[in-house]
């Protein structure tokens, strides 16, 4: 297992205040963000191919959210982009977002340091139906950055008061290489929860690697689990989700028990700006969490 270099799970929110003026209009202004301080930044990956950091943020007003929802983050003077929450929802005063450096906003975000200010608004979107999953086994499969949006659900279900409501928990976490795993400091704790299996896989063999090798869609066939009683929760690159859901369906998991979360360009987060349409649905409002049954009835515009 990995050595936990730094465990970011316990942070205290400092007091950041913000003043906002309201509009002279009968409705609330959903576009006003909350001033937020960056408490710490954790470098997650150490590979050259991708640069992923976890930002530990302290919003001036607590943001309460449910697993699967997302938030719009503003980097001052640069722009705004949507990111899924990546921390336990019961911790409201600090929020963690796990972000890969890819575009204009994330590039500038990665240049910020602890103590700098960003702005958050949200939460937006729907969430994983964890109530519906009670009494069942859960099989999480995450590819690369796909682990980030699953982490709130993972943490919530591992809480002592919730854990007993669910059956066996399997986690298959995939990464390109050993250097690309996220939240390595959590793995030991997660695997120590009762009735929990945590499996790690990488794309290509590496020396001194004793875990699995290969893509999750090929590996799930060799993993034994109670097909009749399992909810599969997937997140990762579109290719992986496609192949993996096909594999699960072939194995016999009903489509309404396979859940995933989609990514889209979203400007407003409230179903107005028109970017995240998939058919008549808006990913920012009707999603980002969809069951395979729903996705099957939607055009493949993602």
């Amino acid at each position, binding site marked *: 297992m990995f050595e936990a270099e730094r465990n970011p799970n316990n942070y205290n929110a400092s007091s950041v205040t*913000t*003043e*906002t*003026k*309201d*509009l*002279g*209009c*009968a*409705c*609330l*202004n*959903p*576009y*006003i*963000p909350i*001033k937020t301080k960056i408490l710490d930044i954790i470098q997650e990956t150490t590979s050259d191919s991708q640069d992923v950091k976890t930002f530990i943020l302290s919003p001036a007003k607590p943001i309460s959210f449910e697993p699967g929802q997302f938030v719009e983050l*503003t980097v*001052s*003077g*640069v*722009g*705004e*982009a949507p990111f899924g929450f990546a921390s336990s929802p019961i911790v409201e005063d600090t929020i963690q977002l796990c972000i890969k450096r*890819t*575009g*204009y*906003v*994330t590039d500038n975000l990665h240049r910020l340091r602890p103590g700098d*200010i960003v*702005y958050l608004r949200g939460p937006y979107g729907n969430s994983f139906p964890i109530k519906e999953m009670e009494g069942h086994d859960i099989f999480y499969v995450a590819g690369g950055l796909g682990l980030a949006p699953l982490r709130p659900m993972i943490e919530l279900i591992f809480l002592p008061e919730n854990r007993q409501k669910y059956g066996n928990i399997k986690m298959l976490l995939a990464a390109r290489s050993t250097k690309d795993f996220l939240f390595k400091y959590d793995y030991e704790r997660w695997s120590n929860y009762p009735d929990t299996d945590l499996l790690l896989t990488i794309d290509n063999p590496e020396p001194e690697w004793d875990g699995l090798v290969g893509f999750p869609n090929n590996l799930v066939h060799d993993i034994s689990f109670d097909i009749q009683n399992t909810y599969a929760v997937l997140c990762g690159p*579109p290719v992986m989700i496609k192949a993996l859901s096909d594999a699960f369906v072939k194995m016999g998991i009903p489509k309404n028990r396979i859940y995933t979360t989609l*990514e*889209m*360009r979203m*400007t*407003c987060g*409230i*179903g*107005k*700006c*028109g*970017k995240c*349409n*998939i*058919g*008549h649905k*808006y990913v920012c*409002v009707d999603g980002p969490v969809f069951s395979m049954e729903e996705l099957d*009835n*939607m*055009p*493949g*515009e*993602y």
Partner: protein
Amino acid sequence: MIILKMSRSAFHDGIGKLFGDYRVVAPSRINGTLDYTDIVDPAQIDLSDELPYKSPKEILFPRVETILRISDDGIDVPDTPKPTILIGVKPCDITAINVMDKVFSKENNKFSDPYYFRRRESLIVIGMGCVHKKPGCFCDELGIDMTFSDYSDAFISIDNDNNIVFLYILDEKYESLFSIFDAQVLESGSPEVSEINSRVNESTTKNLRIDADEKELFEEIPWELYSESCLECGICTYICPTCHCFEFRDVEDCGVTCRNRCWDSCMYPSFTLHASGHNPRATQRERFRQRVLHKYMYVPKNCSVIACTGCGRCIRACPGGLNILRAVQDILDRTIFSKVSKAEECV
């Protein structure tokens, strides 16, 4: 209903009295093009029987609007703009305001858009009917009456022979406002005024709505044929009265970030482009499909109005000669045909 009868000059004088409290917008001719323009002198107003080139949506949903100012001192929202009176709006554009009201309201998803509604709530709409249909107009096919729309606060009818303006006050709360006009007050039913009312043929209403299986539409309609001559310039979406897609652009100056809401267009490749380089709507085929279905299927599903008013602006302005009506009719023909053939298969 109260109807004001006045001479054209009395109408102009009355409008002149509104300038202090209101921003007055009306059709006006600049370099030969009729367009909704900010009026500073009532003589600029041109109420001829012609559809202005651009739509009046900028009044409610400006091309660029600063929605937030973010600085170290906090977050500031720009002041509410002056109330606006929009004069001489054609029924298609009034219908478009109805569409925008629905799209930006809570009915469509759970949030209202405050920047739209703070302008909308103080907007007074004075409509005016069309006499002749213009080339490319197809409001009648969407069940819109080109002579009248009751979604306005007041309506103008002009007797050009005698230079007389009739102002029908549809919303009682504006009766006192319009008392500024030096006019003869008539009641409806009075022999001097012709009755205006909606002459919509109900049977044609909504017959252009596309209602079919989304997945089938995506795959089986030859979208590439309709969009072949598209230049991706986006004029159609800029001059459309109901296109409402937007994006935020942040501009920083001396430590103050202004968040500007700018129009965006589904016809641009960058509209849905992810930071990763992936684009869910990669070619013009998908983008034109989004434009057509958003107007004729998605908004009708979500807000129960067709997001097209048949004003024909996009058809007339398109440099590539794309015709949304032709595309929609072709789609309807094909979907009806496929439904029929499926029914036959069942038999």
